[in-house]
């Protein structure tokens, strides 16, 4: 993996009004991928969705004691892979123990979408942030 061809690093207040901006960045990026052999419009929707879901979670579970808390989102596009990282200052959680949603359950489909549409998902600590790291191959 060489240097990223495209990278974006965003820091936003913990407000849902920024979701459409984050999502549309994902859409634009997908539509601009020249070497992607798959369906770019489908990927555009998927990135929009995955970024929206991950950012929503980071906003929802941010540090509620700090009204100035922020969420950070980075997207790196390499030749053959894209890497999204979403950082929060919340209490953290155990990704592996999140169950699959039932058919009639009203919530709990965010991580399901992320897992279903991307290739790998991890959640870990890095300095004072929690990081959800999402990868997808672009081959």
């Amino acid at each position, binding site marked *: 993996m060489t240097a990223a061809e495209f990278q974006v690093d965003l820091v936003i207040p913990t407000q849902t009004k920024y979701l459409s901006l984050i*999502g549309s960045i994902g859409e634009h990026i997908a539509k601009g991928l020249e070497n992607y052999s798959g369906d770019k419009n*489908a990927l555009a929707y998927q990135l929009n969705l995955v970024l929206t879901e991950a950012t929503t979670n980071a906003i929802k579970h941010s540090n509620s004691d700090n009204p100035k808390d922020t969420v950070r989102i980075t997207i790196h596009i390499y030749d053959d892979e894209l890497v999204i990282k979403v950082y929060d200052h919340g209490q953290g959680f155990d990704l592996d123990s999140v169950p699959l949603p039932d058919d009639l359950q*009203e919530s709990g489909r965010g991580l399901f979408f992320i897992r279903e549409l991307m290739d790998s998902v991890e959640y870990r600590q890095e300095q004072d942030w929690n990081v959800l790291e999402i990868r997808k191959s672009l081959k």
Partner: protein
Amino acid sequence: MKIKKEKIKDFILLTPEEERIDAHNSTEFKEYILDLIKKSEINLIIQLDQVRFIDSSGLGALLAGFKNAQRKAGKLLLVNIQPQVLSMFELTRLNRVFEIYADLDEIFESEP
């Protein structure tokens, strides 16, 4: 959130006039629907032709409306879903939960 509300035969037709339904507006959307059902408007058609994007919280809002309507022996039908939005229903298998129609004609053609 902008929602157009019309009466059509025995149904209330709701058309969200938004490109996106996500965590920013889905709570308002859900409350709008639940409020109607509470007021005994239990037969709803939700027309999604303007919605280009829906996230899990948007699906959740629709599901809340669906379950509440059913509990009161009402109906919540979905109509005019854009292809990419429809794939989200398929991925979550919610296309097997909801009654989904291609257009309004399809809903009413079988009725007398």
